[in-house]
């Protein structure tokens, strides 16, 4: 039996009075394309920051590839790649300089870093502006560059926070193909995205966080089954959504709304915001 790629135990993060992430217990097996979903402010980015060393948890632990992140951060970081929320680019470097720099920060020798830089720039179709600084890249190009930097050392786990936001359709297709190839070779990908269609198409397993708590976790089929059984037991929102599906397979969006949406998807009264056109 292979060890899980990511395990969290009662992982909690408080910001003063606010509990952004509340005792979540998450297990992601190796080789999974894992989608981490939740409404705005649910705690997705906070969780990803804690799993990648960008933020210290208030309590709880996380183990990455069997290693405790707090105790052995360097070993963990060597095996993971991250595209964080703010992209973490040094935008006064050129693309090649930045990738070379990141490669060396992850321990690659100069020759390997240079070779992989050239390959990645070519693959990401960023090689035609060798003198341009990252500050002069479009948002989509910066996203591609951040992804290239996250994979330059061949990580076993890739954490992606909204990787497809602002990326054009052609580039998104190319990136998805690259990510699927990584999965086929045994890597684990932990992805957050608001675009549920993408998550549904790419991810085999999903967890949903709501108001800091983990409210669902499993394969898509397991979540569908969970929503269906909840409908059979008379859960109002779940029953309504299951009814809307009229016997067809529930989409991830319907599952998501059934689990976190009873409040959010409630039809609002006509008189609310009546001054809007």
């Amino acid at each position: 039996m292979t060890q899980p790629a990511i395990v969290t135990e009662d992982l909690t993060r408080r910001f003063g009075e606010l509990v952004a992430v509340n005792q979540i217990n998450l297990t992601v097996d190796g080789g999974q394309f894992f989608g981490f979903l939740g409404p705005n402010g649910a705690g997705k980015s906070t969780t990803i920051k804690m799993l990648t060393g960008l933020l210290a948890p208030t309590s709880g632990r996380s183990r990455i590839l069997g290693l405790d992140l707090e105790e052995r951060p360097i070993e963990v970081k060597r095996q993971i790649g991250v595209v964080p929320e703010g992209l973490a680019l040094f935008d006064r470097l050129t693309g090649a300089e930045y990738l070379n720099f990141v490669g060396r920060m992850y321990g690659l020798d100069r020759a390997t870093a240079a070779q992989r830089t050239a390959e990645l720039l070519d693959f990401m179709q960023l090689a035609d502006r060798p003198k341009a600084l990252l500050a002069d890249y479009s948002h989509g190009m910066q996203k591609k560059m951040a992804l290239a930097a996250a994979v330059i050392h061949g990580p076993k786990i890739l954490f992606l926070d909204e990787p497809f936001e602002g990326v054009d359709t052609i580039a998104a297709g190319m990136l998805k193909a690259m990510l699927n190839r990584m999965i086929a070779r045994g890597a684990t990908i932990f992805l957050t995205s608001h675009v549920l269609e993408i998550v549904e198409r790419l991810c085999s397993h999903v967890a949903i966080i709501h108001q800091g708590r983990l409210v669902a976790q499993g394969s898509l089929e397991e979540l569908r089954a969970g929503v269906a059984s909840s409908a059979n037991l008379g859960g109002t929102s779940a029953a309504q959504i299951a009814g809307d599906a009229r016997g067809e397979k529930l989409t991830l969006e319907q599952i998501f709304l059934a689990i976190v949406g009873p409040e959010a998807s409630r039809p609002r009264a006509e008189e609310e915001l009546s001054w809007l056109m």
Partner: protein
Amino acid sequence: MADVAVAAGIGEQVAIVAALRWRIFRNSLRTTTGRLDVLGVVLVGMFTGLFSVGAGLGLGIASYFLLAKGRLALLALPFWAVFSLWQFMPVMLAAATASFDFRNLLRFPLRFSVFFLLSLAYGLFDLAAVASLFWLVCIATGLALARPDLLPGTLLTLAIFAAMNLLLSRAVLSWVERLLARRRTREAMLAIFLLLLLGFQLATALGERWHQRVQPYVVAALPVIRLLPPNLAGKAVAGAAPGYASTTAVPAALLLGYAFAFGLLLERRLRAQYRGEELSETQAVRAVPAPTSSASLLSLASSFLPAPVAAVFEKECRYLLRNSVMLLNSFLPVLLVAFFGLAWSGPRQRPGLFTRFPALAFPGGVAYVALIVGQFVLNIFAYDGRGLQLWFVAPIRFRDVLVGKNLMFGLLLAVEAGLVWLAVSLLFRPPEAVIVVATLAGLLFVMLLHFLVGNWLSLKFPRRFEFGKYRRRPSGMTMLIAFALQFVMIATAAAVTLLARWTGRIWLIAVVFFCLSGILLGVYRATLDRFTRLAESQREVLTTQLCR
């Protein structure tokens, strides 16, 4: 059609923005860092305020005596002092000013008149403007005490003079910022600035060499100088005094004309901003020099370092070479040392400090270099921006980041010390070996002290600086501690020098500083792991401050 029936008036809009600034300030006090920042600003303000108060009182007294004794032709001098402070200090320092960019407000339905007024109000809260206004009040008081009957005319002149200064400073700064926003114009500005310095120096040298020939041209230029604003202000005040040839009206009207012209200049600049001018660097992309030659040099320089330290060191060198503002600030001291040297070593030598005491030239120049470069060491993550997150997600120890950054500044100081040595050797004479060794030992001490304090300050009170933007303000606590640091360094240098003089052994300076440096190096190494832990605990503060 939106439901907004009546657009907000100018007063209301200004009040709304003022309330916004107040709320931002009040909310900044919620955190300990924010409160310490304000405390630092207040204390630094008190220190600089002491100088301003002293100089202001001096100007007031001088104005009183000039008017009371009838030295009316010299009444322009206090106004030149105010003019110089108000116009040159913000451009030269461009620091210690509010960092709120009111252009962010342009997405709201703000009237241009409000935008213009806000720009002026912004300028009024500049430290130089506040000090200048205080000086003007002192001058007004001095003049009023000397001749109470001239008070109405004096107040009118001072009001016009203040308005002219405010409009000019805003216009100049907004144009400077525009020019510095793009890489190409930044390089051009740098070149012009250096040429101006050279030109000034050349003019001085020529003046000294061909004194007789140049004199008629200087005399011919005097009428032009008489038409400059400070002279006009002095003339307008003096004009009211009986028996003086001129009247108040003409110079005051000319002063008003200046204010109007500068107002138009500012209006043109702000109008462009109001229309949504974009000052990004996109158009200058192709101007970036190819990195190949510098890359190989950097690789060579860092080949003996551990990989992460070398990577950080190389990145820092690239950032320095691309940041014209930082580069200019870093190398300006060397240039100024060279220029002062030229001025004091010409064919008609004036009794300059370094001419009389050439042994002081090298230590003096190096101290000046350390003073200027040292300010960057106290906020080493300032230009990292969002890239800062990489220091936390990469499999490196944070101490490697600190060492890489410190090494770059160490190299910069070493290069500049070498340049100062070259300048002093060419302009005066090569400094004695004992002086060189003592100075380098002192520099090592100062550098290590800066690294030690700077690493801590950078982690505790980080402040983001915009790349290529001239205006930047470190945290208040950083400014305060920088003052204290300078005091400690000067006191230590004075004590060690006195000890050497007392014992008659100059070499003792080097020995003492090497010993102190050895101790500091030990402390520096010991603190690197502590600072690594501090960085871990400061992750949120750092990302909040720098990744916005």
